[in-house]
């Protein structure tokens, strides 16, 4: 057994030694492997993954691990089992507030129509929500958006029944008639519409009212301190995928559809509900800002954490400075410069 293992090891070492370094490879230190936690959300990550770009350019073996929610990503990074991950802005705000050893390094997407509150047709306005049963996956961005919507319309927690349901269970509960509405994302959202639900409000509407939500990329402190070049190269691939989506949409959507296991038409529909940004665009004051001049993302994260404290969801939120440090634009800036 030991002999076999040794020979496998020698073989793999020799393969690595013989293979050519990738064209846009990384000169400095590389980790033994990169563990990326992804979610089935239509964004640049999945395009770069399907096209094998990260494997080609990072020069390290990549372990792709699928997650269903930001909570598990947070837990995995806390446990040191993950280097990069995708979380929603509320999951990220929670993580930073609880002192998880990670930085927010990029915005995967700004959430728009892809997350919405779908309700029974008899519900015409937010005021009609009183006394109703509403579902959302607790801790997710939609839960946050729903709480914000209720608060903005002065509907108290006791006036509605909020139920914690995973997206797959939301559909079943809707069909059975157990719930009157759900704030949820694609593809469940479309299935709710197909099953007769109407759209009461969306995260695009919420963003216009100042309640912006994002899907963000977080990187463990170990990765950002030891292997910053890997982080930059990873972000460069994401930015490249955003550009591909704009320049050659059929190819990008084809990759996306394959990764999501849906038709190209469905992939297009899902992707249009999210706003994708290149590395340069994310450096705008509306998002990351420049290093030294923190943008609105840190404010949004702080606002999210404060709101969760006010809702007794988490106990305390740190100062704005913590979120400004936590949203680290340096990697994006380097990725943006390098791609020019």
């Amino acid at each position, binding site marked *: 057994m030991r002999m076999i293992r040794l020979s496998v090891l020698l073989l793999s070492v020799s393969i690595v030694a013989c293979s050519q370094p990738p064209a846009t490879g990384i000169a400095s230190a590389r980790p033994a492997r990169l563990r990326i936690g992804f979610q089935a959300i239509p964004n640049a990550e999945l395009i770069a993954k399907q096209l094998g770009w990260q494997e080609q350019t990072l020069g390290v073996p990549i372990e792709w691990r699928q997650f269903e*929610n930001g*909570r598990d990503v*947070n*837990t995995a990074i*806390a446990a040191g089992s993950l280097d990069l991950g995708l979380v929603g802005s509320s999951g990220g705000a*929670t*993580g930073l507030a*609880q*002192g*998880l*050893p990670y930085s927010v390094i990029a915005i995967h997407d700004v959430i728009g129509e892809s997350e919405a509150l779908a309700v029974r047709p008899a519900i015409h306005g937010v005021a009609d929500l009183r006394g109703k049963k509403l*579902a959302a996956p*607790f*801790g997710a961005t939609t839960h946050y958006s729903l709480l914000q919507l209720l608060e903005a319309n002065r509907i108290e*927690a*006791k006036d509605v*029944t*909020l*139920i*914690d*349901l*995973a997206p*797959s*269970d939301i559909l*079943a*509960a809707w069909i*059975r008639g*157990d*719930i009157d509405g759900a704030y949820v994302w694609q593809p469940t959202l479309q299935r709710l519409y197909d099953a007769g639900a109407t759209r009461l409000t969306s995260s695009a509407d919420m963003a216009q009212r100042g309640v912006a939500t994002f899907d963000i990329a977080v990187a463990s402190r170990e990765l950002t301190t030891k292997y910053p070049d890997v982080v930059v190269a990873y972000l460069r691939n994401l930015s490249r995928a955003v550009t591909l989506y704009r320049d050659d949409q059929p190819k990008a959507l084809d990759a996306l559809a394959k990764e999501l296991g849906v038709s190209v038409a469905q992939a297009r529909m899902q992707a249009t509900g999210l706003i994708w940004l290149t590395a340069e665009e994310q450096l705008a004051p509306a998002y990351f800002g420049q290093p030294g001049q923190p943008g609105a993302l840190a404010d949004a994260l702080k606002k999210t954490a404060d709101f*969760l404290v006010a809702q*007794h*969801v*988490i*106990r305390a939120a740190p100062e704005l400075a913590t979120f400004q440090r936590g949203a680290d634009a340096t990697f994006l800036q380097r990725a943006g410069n390098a791609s020019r």
Partner: protein
Amino acid sequence: MSPSRGRLPAPILTLITLVVLLLTWQLIAASGRVPAYFVPTPVRTWLAFTDLVARGYRGHSLLEHLGASLLRVLVAFLGSALIGIPLGLGIGASRRLAAMINPLIEFYRPLPPLAYYTLLVIWLGIGDASKIALLLLAGLPPVVIATASAVRGVRSDYVHGARSLGATRAQVFRHVILPASLPEIFTGLRVSIGFTYTTLVAAEMVAGVNGVGWMVLDASKFLQSDVIFVGIILMGVTGLGLDAAMRLIESWAVPWRGKV
């Protein structure tokens, strides 16, 4: 010299274990090497507990959470007993019934409850019915199997003795088989309530609005380790309480345990 010189009585030993555990916990948590989301200090956990007592969790008081969970467990447990004991008696007494029912129970017994939970939710909805059904299904097999085995294990000379003295089948059942089986049935019931209780968190995973299991799951979404600790300790203590209650009922209902 007393033979127990230098030996400590059992309660003191238990106390020592607890104190050592608490001290180790405090040392690890206060060392500053592990972040609070890994291990909250005992003090912080206590504060979380008092906070939960004072303010509740997500709009329900701690007692409501505990009560909701206990109600689900007890209703499911009573259901398992009401279905499981007659079924087990039947299976133990009749080979034909055993041949009909046993395969079903043997098939679903080892299934992880989460595997079929979604089906229960689709069939019964997201309310308490699906949760109780899941708990009931988890608690049923130990009762059925223990009862059936108890009936089969009744010493045949007891039965023959009663029959030769002129007892009817019903009398044999009522006065021989049932009392002789009760100790093992109670063992089955204790195992059953344990199974039911260990499935609680899974049952409260879908569509939770209350319950200690749901509280722990919800707290984990926000890395509230202190609440998780409180929830786990509460569930542990409650579990011990349930088992103690079962033993009490057993000693009252089956005083002849170990004497037949």
